[in-house]
């Protein structure tokens, strides 16, 4: 039972000396430990990038503020964006995937455990390389430190002529290396899901989390690789004097934009699909019903995967594409709303007629539904290219994508944290602190990101370190900054809750949520080998069948 196996877990104090335990973590190829490493690593960078966001918001609190210099401000938004996307969102989602996929499909590890470790350490090294630029970015002469080219690093700002010193080199190398790590993880996810499922688990009986991670991994292969290629070209430009993006020698700035967004837009779906996956696991359990329309959910996921490959230039409506280009990317960007809408309706359908328990994971999922609805609707506005000519590059678009990344992705991540925390640590978190976290974060989130839309509509562009008074932007920026601090306090409560619960929480037992997927059939935390005997499944909810032998799922599926 649970109490017997807690000592196996790395969190709990073992008998081994600390050096040996550390060595165990560094050399591990166990998917559960690597998953936790990913998550802890990402949380560390979440705090750093959060501090950068706070610096940005303090600077913008009032017009003509002198909290930081323009150079520092530009580094802050570049590092905030780069860190949050590449060293928080992606690794944390990979971390959950790495931890959960083998458990949910009844396997003992990933298909390639050593590749798994390599991928993690590459990603980790990429993050450290990026931050080493604060130390090493100066180079030889007057080059400043830390990248300051924006997270999409438009050419020719990244060329040697406009970005002297080494800060941009750190940026491009960090993304190149972590990108290779991401591709490795994606290969591993696909190979694991295709070849390691336990007997009986056909593709149609896989948990939706595995399905969505499968599609995500496929998108990583096809989307992160172009970014890697483009970073190689940028390296050639900066080190070998090539001219890919050198506009002085006939190179094209627009080509970089295409290459970046061919990565950049699927990336949004690479991040949102795993968070859909969390919602698709959590909402049914807390509504006490199976997911509504499983085949349609799978189909919608696959459709999103395909369509998302053809929408990238909606980030480029203002670059002067011909009218047929704008029209094409308008229709593709709008069409992707249909499968996304299907998902929202299916989650509502799942809750319909259920008996909903509002524990912290479900609270975060419900908030996710509301916020994702709004994010989707502002997405429709941005897809209408003429409207986009006004909105792109403004604070409206900043508010929109934070609504997606914070309002949807981070909220489901918090839900996932609370939902699987008992499994990972063997202990329950404090529900009271979790509720405080939830409500404070909801309030802070809406203060910040609801009001952030308005200055965009009033003509405030993004990435400006200061602004003129008298343009109607002042009050909104003040409110946005206040909201940032409320969110900061909420995240602090979250961290305290995690740390406290890891050591002092109540033992959770194997299955605290009365859930239905395979990870809840083993101990909390699971033993090194996950399952003593490889399970056999007959339906999408193997534990439901076990708990309700009189009314098993496989009769209906």
């Amino acid at each position, binding site marked *: 039972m649970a109490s017997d196996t807690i000592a196996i877990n790395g969190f709990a104090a073992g008998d081994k000396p600390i050096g040996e335990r550390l060595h165990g973590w560094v050399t591990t190829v166990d998917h559960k430990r690597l998953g936790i490493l990913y998550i802890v690593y990402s949380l560390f960078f979440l705090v750093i990038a959060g501090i950068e966001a706070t610096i940005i918001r303090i600077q913008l609190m009032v017009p003509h503020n002198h909290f930081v210099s*323009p*150079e520092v401000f530009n580094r802050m938004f570049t590092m905030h964006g780069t860190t949050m996307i590449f060293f928080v969102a992606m690794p944390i989602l990979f971390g959950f995937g790495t931890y959960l996929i083998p458990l949910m499909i009844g396997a003992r590890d990933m298909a390639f455990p050593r590749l798994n470790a390599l991928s993690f350490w590459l990603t980790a090294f990429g993050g450290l390389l990026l931050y080493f630029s604060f130390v090493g970015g100066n180079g030889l002469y007057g080059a400043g430190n830390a990248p300051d080219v924006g997270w999409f690093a*438009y050419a*020719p*700002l990244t060329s040697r002529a*406009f970005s002297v010193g080494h800060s941009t080199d750190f940026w491009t190398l960090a993304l190149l290396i972590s990108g290779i790590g991401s591709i490795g993880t994606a290969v591993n996810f696909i190979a694991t899901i295709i070849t390691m499922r336990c007997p009986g688990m056909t593709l149609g009986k896989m948990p939706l989390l595995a399905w969505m991670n499968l599609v995500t991994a496929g998108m990583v292969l096809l989307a992160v690789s172009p970014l890697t290629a483009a970073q190689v070209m940028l390296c050639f430009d900066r080190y070998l004097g090539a001219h890919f993006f050198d*506009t002085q020698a*006939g*190179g*094209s700035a*627009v080509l970089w934009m295409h290459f970046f967004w061919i990565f950049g837009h699927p990336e949004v779906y690479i991040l949102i699909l795993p968070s859909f996956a969390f919602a698709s696991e959590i909402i049914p359990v807390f*509504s*006490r*019903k*199976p997911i*509504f*329309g*499983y*085949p349609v959910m799978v189909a919608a996921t696959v459709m999103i995967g395909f369509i998302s490959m053809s929408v990238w230039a909606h980030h480029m409506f*203002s*670059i*002067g594409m011909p*009218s047929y280009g*704008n029209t094409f990317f*308008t229709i593709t960007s*709008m069409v992707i*709303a*249909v499968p996304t809408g*299907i998902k929202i309706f299916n989650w*509502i*359908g799942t809750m*319909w*007629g259920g*008996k*909903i328990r*509002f524990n912290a994971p479900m609270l975060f999922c*419900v908030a996710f*539904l*509301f916020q994702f*609805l709004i994010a989707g*609707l502002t997405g429709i*506005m941005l897809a*209408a290219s*003429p*409207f986009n*000519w*006004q909105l*792109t590059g403004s604070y409206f678009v900043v508010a929109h994508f934070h609504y997606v990344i914070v309002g949807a992705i981070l909220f489901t991540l918090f839900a996932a944290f609370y939902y699987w925390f008992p499994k990972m640590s063997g202990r329950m978190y404090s529900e009271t602190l979790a509720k405080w976290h939830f409500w404070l974060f*909801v309030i802070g989130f809406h203060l910040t990101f*609801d009001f952030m839309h*308005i200055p965009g*509509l*009033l*003509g405030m562009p993004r*990435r*400006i*370190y*200061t602004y003129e008074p*008298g343009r109607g932007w002042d009050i909104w920026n003040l409110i946005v900054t206040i909201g940032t601090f409320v969110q900061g306090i909420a995240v602090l409560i979250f961290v305290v809750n995690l740390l406290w619960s890891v050591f002092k929480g109540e033992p959770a037992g194997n299955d605290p949520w009365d859930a239905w997927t395979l990870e809840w059939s083993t101990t909390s935390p699971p033993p090194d080998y996950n399952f003593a005997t490889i399970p056999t499944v007959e339906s999408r909810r193997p534990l439901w069948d076990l708990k309700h032998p009189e009314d098993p799922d496989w009769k*209906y599926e």
Partner: protein
Amino acid sequence: MKPCAQSRGLVCKVAGLALLLGFLLLIATVCSAAPAGPSQIPNIFKPDSTPADSIFRLSRLVLIICALIFVVVFSLMVYVVAKFRRRGADDGHEPPQVYGSNQVELAWTVIPGLIVLVLFLATARVILSVQDAPKPPGAIEVVAIGHQYWWEYRYPALGVVTANELHVPVSDPQHPTPTFITLLSADTDHSFWVPRLAGKTDLIPNHPNHTWIDPHETGLFLGQCAQYCGVQHAKMLLRVYVDSGADFNAWIQSEKKSAVTDDAAIEGRHIFESTACVNCHAVSGTVADGHFGPDLTHMMSRDTIAAGAAANTRENLRAWIQSPDSIKPGSLMPAMKLNDHDLDALTSYLETLR
């Protein structure tokens, strides 16, 4: 969970959601229904030119459709959350297990599909009408060149070169005199955005772009560079002066002239022409012929210096020449490090460039 705590949580939730709805209504009212404010607010919902107006009309349609979707789905969510929560008097049984319904799935696939179709058709019309608008014979042609961190404006047909403050004639719907702007960049990417006149179009090196405006009212319209272009992206401000036809012609005539020579400022002129100033700045009719910085031939006709970062006053000019970083840190203009006497003389000379 105890029933009372349950219902209290629900009250909180409904209150929170009401708050959310309130925020959205607030956004809608603030942005679209506010009374006409001072023109200094570059509100995209106060269009004053055909492209901005077409976009505004489209955005109104999109907003209404989105608001309707929001109200319907939001109500549905609130209903589900309130109605199907687990109540205190629960019998402990699981609810009926429902796996899906093809009819319902079909409905919520087809209906959003139809909405998307409507939105797309409305959007496509506006794309074509704004982007492929024909150029009438009376159109003014301007070439705008983005520099780190200022704007160069050339009127090739009229023989005028100026910087940072764009003058265009007001356009009368009966006799339209729109301004067609070719957008070029001398260095990095920039974006031309005057929200009340038109949506933004980027200025990209090696990639000429076009936009057009036909302001319906005279006055000053503000905007700024909307594509991150380097350290001082924030202070690359845009000022568009819409003049009456007569005022515009008078302005053109005055800009066409060479710089006046004022003997009182001959010492300052000498300093100007013997220092690094002439490497970057041009003053027509003199030896100053640089093109890296703004043309100064008629700089005193402008209200601002440093791309709108400061008012064009003697104090600001002096501070700008002595230390550009004091007004716009990161600007590419070097600090001239003149002594007080020379600085005064140079400033006096610049003040004669009307």
